[in-house]
Each structure stands twice: as C-alpha cells, then as structure tokens.
C-alpha cells in the first residue's frame, strides 16, 4: 500500500513541477521520508509558553501563536536553513525581471479540513488579509497593487515597486493561508474560528482547554500521504520554568522551542541521556541584542559618550554571563548565520578598553565627582526575553566602572512599550531586534528615520536620522539584484557601526530541547515553528 502511494505521489509531483524553483532534492527528500514511514503512531507532547491568545497568526504573531498556527494553517512556501524557498502550498513560482509581477502555481487536490477544496482565491484573500492586519504584512505587502486568482491553481501578484523580500515572507507562520469561504475581511480578527482553526495542514484542531493544553490530531487527508506520522499533537501550557525542566527530565514533555528550560541547566542535561538540544531552526528569526540610545538626550547625542560606553562593554562577558554561552558576539547588526551575503565582517572600532572609556568621558566634559560618579542614566530592559534583563544588569555593572550610575527599569510588556516607544522617557534600552527573514523587513525600521513613530512599537526608538543611511536602506528595499543589494547593506553597516546609534552586542541563540525519540522537526528555517509534517518518532 505504501508503494502504490509513493508512486502516485511522485507521478503527481512530476506533473506539478513546471518552472524553476523546485530543486530536485526536494522530491527525493519527500520520497525517502515516506519510505521510512511505519504506521503513524503516538502522541507528541510539545511544551508551550506563554499560552498563545489565538491559534491563527495573521494578526498576532507573538512566538507561540506562530508555533500553534503553523501546524494547522500552511503557507505558500517553506524555507531551508539558509532561507532558500521550497514549495509548500505553492509548487512553483516565477518573478518577472523587473520584480513587479509574481506568479505562483498552486498545489492541486489540497483540501481544507472541512472538505472544501483549496484554491487560488484563498491564497489571494489571505495575502490581502495579511496586508491589512499583520504587524509586518502592512509593510511587506505595502507595494502590492493587486492579488488575483488567475485560475483555481494560479496566483498572480502585481506590485507598484519591487519588493525583494516578498518571496521570503510566505512561510506558514508569517503569512498563513486561510479559508476564504469561512472568513470575512472586515471581521477576520474576531472570527471564532481563530480559536478552532480550519486549515490545510498536517494536523487538525481538536480541543483547547485554556490554561492547560491544546490538542491537535493527525489529518488523514493531508496532501502529503503518509504524513504526519504522529497521531496526536499535545501542546502543554507550562508557565513555570522549573516545571518545564522537570517535565523534560521525567519524560512528560517531548519537545520545546525557544529555550524552554534555563540555559544554565543545558550543560547538566548529559545526566539525562534521553534529552538532546539543538540551536538549528531559527534562521528566519535572528535576534540581535543591542543597546539602544535615545539620541534626543543631550548626553547621548554626543558621539564620544556613546563611544565611551562601547569601550566599557565586553561582548564576551555578555555572551558568557547574560546568555550562559548561548550567544554569538556580533559587531554588525546583520548577522552572518542568516544572511551570509549581507553580513559585514567588520572589526570592532571600539573594543573593550576601560582606560579609553574614561579618557573619552573626561574629554567630553563629564569628569568624576564625589564618589567617582560622572553622570546617571536610566536603562530599560526589554521584558520579552530573560537574556535582555540579564544584559541590562551586566551593562549596569560595566558602566559603574567608568563612573556612570545606571538605574535599571524592569517593566511588564505593556509598560515597556509605553515607556520606550510611546512616551520615550528612556535614556538607554537593552532590546532585541530581529532581522526576521530579511533585513529590510526586520532591521530597517530601527535605523530608518521615516519609521520613527511614537505610536508604533519597535520602530526607530533612537530617533536616528542620517540621510545617507536612509538613502541606502531605501535603495536596498527595492533593489532586485542580490549583489547590488548586498553592497548597499554593507555600506549601511559601515556607517552605523561607526556612528553607533545603537550598539549591536550579541546574536542570541535559541535552543530547542527535545527527547531523542523525536525526529524530523528541524528541517526548515522555522524549525518547530513550521508545520513539522515530517515529524516522527525514531525507531527504537
């Protein structure tokens, strides 16, 4: 029975392959995965924290929302660890040479969980929905003029200006494809289906007991026959970090992403032979920890002061202490691991040098006074990751050595967003900026002067304004040629590394902890946050 299905599948796949974009290995990989399948079995227990507010990620893209959504709802594409696109609901695609027209050939014979057929109309609807409600979609698809279903399996996008990052924005978590026959654009956010989603994915929704767990079950009509090989997906909501650690140790939790256990405990995991970890599967969400300055403050507008602060920080200490070693020091804001072509391999112009730091502050007109204090600054710690908080404490300690008294402010997320972005009552903040899947989408908002907007969080908090940087970023945003784009990004990085409106410190590494009996969850750049159709239990 398995043999017949495989042959049929390959037959269908060869028919569906039309244009460029489908590497040969994609087919063979699917084939071999199927060959190793046994009967589908068992329950996979995934730990989730915090509890996602909804199970659909077109409007709310907080971490666990994406994790929960992408198993039920799929995207047009998925991505390799180096961000090369691969087919998911789209089997092939092409971009016109001027970068203004995209055409996608969609997979046939895909059904929604309620039995209705998936068509291009659904894809068009979902992209327009993303443009309207998605936190990044409004920017990603800003240049979109029209999204039309040419026929049942062909989607065409017309843009007013090129958007070289658009092809990377189509993963299940980023732009989920929703059933247009069950959603209305005007009421989409309140649609009750957001709590019991219907999609095309490998798993179907079964139940959600708020505060406790979410249960998904295998989709028997999934378009990849034989997958998934797991019968039930059980998401357990465990807010307490020590309880999560316990759960992994005693085997009640199988897998968790984004560092579910204390990083300090990871070295101790070798006492538990059934557990393993990996840092793969986060390429589409590279987060750089940075110290951002409010340039509207007179003290921090002075380049010497910022340089002095840079000289007082040792990235290696941050890596070791704030992140327990799970970080990679970086001088350039565009990281090497996700964007090897755009990354600038620059030397730190302001290496760790306490003496130099002191000299600069003296020269800038801030001599030491009583008690060795020069000046006082506030530092707000971004609450969305424990590492930021610890980095803030490190910065406090480090700057005390050069006579700067730092007052750390730890707030809950709502207050933090208000203080830093709306009211702008901060001097410095330790924050994380994610380059996401493309620097234009992730990074531009931090450095581009036009993205400064007190009503929008994670926009330009420093109020940095450099016309040359603006020009470079704007040009890169619409440059379809990769080499030219890389050149623009590198020149941009040269400038900001010198001027340091924000100091990039380390790229943090997220860790996935898993029981060795689980496999096949880390095949894409999204890792566990993808649709994990390939997940299975390793043969004993």
């Amino acid at each position: 029975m398995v043999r017949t299905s495989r042959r049929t599948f390959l037959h269908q796949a060869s028919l569906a392959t039309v244009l460029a974009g489908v590497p040969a290995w994609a087919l063979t990989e699917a084939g071999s995965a199927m060959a190793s399948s046994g009967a589908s079995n068992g329950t996979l227990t995934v730990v989730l924290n915090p509890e996602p507010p909804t199970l659909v990620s077109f409007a709310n893209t907080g971490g666990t929302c994406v994790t929960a959504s992408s198993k039920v709802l799929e995207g047009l594409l998925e991505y390799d660890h180096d961000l090369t696109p691969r087919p998911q609901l789209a089997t092939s695609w092409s971009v016109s040479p001027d970068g203004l027209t995209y055409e996608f050939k969609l997979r046939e014979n895909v059904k929604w969980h309620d039995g209705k057929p998936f068509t291009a109309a659904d894809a068009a609807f979902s992209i327009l929905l993303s443009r309207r409600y998605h936190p990044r979609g409004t920017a990603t698809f800003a240049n979109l003029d029209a999204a039309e279903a040419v026929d049942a399996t062909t989607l065409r996008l017309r843009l007013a200006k090129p958007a070289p990052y658009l092809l990377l924005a189509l993963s299940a978590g980023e732009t989920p494809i929703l059933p247009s026959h069950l959603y209305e654009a005007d009421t989409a956010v309140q649609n009750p289906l957001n709590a019991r989603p219907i999609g095309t994915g490998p798993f179907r929704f079964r139940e959600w007991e708020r505060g406790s767990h979410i249960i998904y079950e295998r989709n028997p009509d999934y378009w990849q026959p034989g997958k998934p090989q797991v019968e039930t997906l059980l998401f357990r909501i465990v807010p307490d970090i020590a309880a999560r650690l316990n759960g992994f140790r005693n085997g009640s939790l199988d897998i968790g992403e984004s560092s579910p256990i204390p990083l300090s405990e990871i070295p101790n995991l070798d006492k538990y032979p059934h557990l393993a970890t990996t840092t793969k599967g986060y390429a589409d969400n590279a987060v750089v920890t940075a110290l951002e300055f409010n340039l509207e403050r007179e003290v921090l507008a002075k380049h010497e002061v910022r340089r002095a602060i840079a000289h007082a920080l040792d990235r290696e200490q941050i890596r070791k202490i704030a992140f327990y070693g799970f970080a990679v020091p970086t001088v350039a804001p565009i990281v090497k691991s996700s964007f090897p072509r755009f990354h600038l391999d620059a030397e730190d112009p302001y290496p760790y040098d306490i003496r130099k730091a002191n000299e600069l502050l003296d020269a800038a007109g801030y001599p030491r006074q009583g008690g060795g204090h020069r000046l006082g600054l506030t530092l707000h710690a971004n609450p969305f990751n424990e590492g930021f908080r610890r980095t803030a404490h490190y910065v406090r300690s480090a700057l005390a050595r050069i006579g700067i008294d730092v007052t750390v402010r730890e707030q809950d997320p709502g207050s933090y967003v208000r203080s830093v972005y709306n009211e702008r009552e901060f001097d410095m903040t330790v924050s994380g900026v994610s380059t996401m899947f493309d620097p234009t989408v992730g990074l531009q908002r931090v450095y581009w002067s036009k993205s400064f907007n007190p009503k929008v969080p994670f926009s330009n908090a420093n109020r940095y304004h450099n016309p040359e940087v603006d020009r470079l970023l704007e040009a890169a945003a619409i440059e379809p040629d990769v080499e030219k784009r890389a050149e623009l990004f590198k020149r941009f990085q040269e400038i900001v590394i010198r001027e340091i409106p924000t100091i990039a410190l380390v790229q943090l590494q997220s860790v996935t902890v898993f029981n060795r009996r689980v496999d096949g969850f880390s095949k894409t750049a999204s890792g566990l946050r993808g649709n994990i159709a390939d997940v299975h239990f390793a043969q004993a």
Partner: protein
Amino acid sequence: MGPNVIANDSVVVADPRGARRLPGATALRSLARDPLALLGLAILVGAAFVAAFADLIAPGDPLDMAGIPLQWPGDDPAHVLGTDSLGRDVFSGLVHGTRASLMIGLSAAGVSLALGVLVGAIAGYFGGRADSALLRLTELFQTVPAFLLVIVLVAINTPTIGVIQLAIGLASWPEIARLVRSEFRLLRDSDFVLAARAAGFSSAHIVVREVLPNALPPLIVTTSILVASAILTESGLSFLGMSDPNVVSWGGMIGGNREHIGSAWFLTALPGAAIAIVVLAFNLLGDGLNDALNPRLRRRPS
C-alpha cells in the same frame, strides 16, 4: 504568598474606669519577662543593626557582578554564601537586603496606619452619615482581593520601592480602619471623653489627645503584624517578578533565581530563611505586646 490579613485574636476592652492609660511601666515589665518576645525584639534589633551598617558589614555594591555565577556556599572563600546566576554575592545581598525589606515593611505599614487611623477615627468618633459613608468605602476596598489590587497598582507604575510600599499600604488600610473604628466607637462614650467634651475641648483635640492614646494598645500589636504581612506581600510580588531591580531585597533574590531551584536551591532557601526569621520576630514581638498590653487575655492559663 503574603496575603494582607491580620490575625487579631485579641479581644480588647477599655479600662472601665475610664482613666487615661498609656502603655506604661507595667506593660514594659511584663514584656521583659516574656522570653519569646525578648527573642523577637533581639532579632529585630539585630536586623536593624545590620541594615544600618550594611555598608560596613558587606562593603561594595551588592548588585555588582563580582564573581563566577552559581557558586555554592563554601566553594569560593571570597563569597562565603555563594553567588547567584549573575555572579552577585549572596552574603552581600542578604545584608543589604535587610535594609530594603525592613524599610518596605515599615513604610507600607506606615501608609496603612495613616490612612486607616484617619478613616477609622472619623468614622468611629463621629458616627452617623460620615460613618456609613466611610464604612461603605472601607467595604469597597476590602471586597477587592487585596493581592490583586496590589498587582494592578504596581503595574500602573514602574515597580520601584516607593510604588511597592504605597501599593501594599493602600491594600491593607481597611483592616486598620475597622479596628480603629471599633475602638473609637467603644471609647467615645467613656467618662473621660464626656468630661473633655463638657470642658469644651474641640473634637480634634479629643480625638488626638484623649481617645487615640487609649486606642493604642491593639494598634501597636496590629502594627507589628502589619509589618510582617507587608514583608510577606513584597516577597510574593518579587516572586511574580514585580520588584525593584535597583534595590536588593530578599524577595527579589528569591524571585530572580526561581529557575535554579533544582541545582542551586540555596539561592531560594537563604533569603527565604531570612524573611521567615524577621517575620517570626515581628510576630513574637506582637504576641508579647499583646500579652503585655492586654492583661485580661493571658497565654498562660491562670
């Protein structure tokens, strides 16, 4: 956990003869004979000493990342009680934390007292419409679960020591108000009050100079419990992550090292023990004061 509840197991009756009676020599003497109360007092004096001379006992900044993180007590002679996950010295944290914990307890209790006495005195002494209105207000605040109210109040502002003290104080004043009110209601019809009124003294004078001193005994007892309760509440808040990151407090030490309970549980046990000892001391003292000021109710059977 620290709910703001005062276990007031005393029944208080004013001296029937109506004479002015401040907690005087008799009370102090019976306090001096109570070994447990003396123990409590000794601990508190010790804590106050540590708080006052923290900079001498443990010089340096307790928040400084001074050593290798997560060292057990005894591993490194420079850090006798070990270090926490950021490399901060635990001994230094405990010593400097005394100051914050005591201050929070005392200030929060002060806020509660001020508000509670004000409301309770007016309601109890004047009665009538003022009483009904204030009673309603008190009930209002008592019906909202106190800890939830504290959380909301702290979340409105940045969690700093001042805000936390205020929030805890604001959540506990209803009980003081009730206590003061019932005291004043009892006392307002006493002989000496009537005499003072007849002599033409103003209400304010009577309340402050005549009634209040007589209402002090249960208040004093309740205060020590109040301080203990405030310290417990602050530790609960810190456990939930709402503590001031620029000040070392015992609750903050526990909250910040929650995840290391498995391998470095001394980071939880040591500050927890410190809290328990100080809270215990306040309770012992409160019990002793209760016995000393309320000879009617004795712990030892006659």
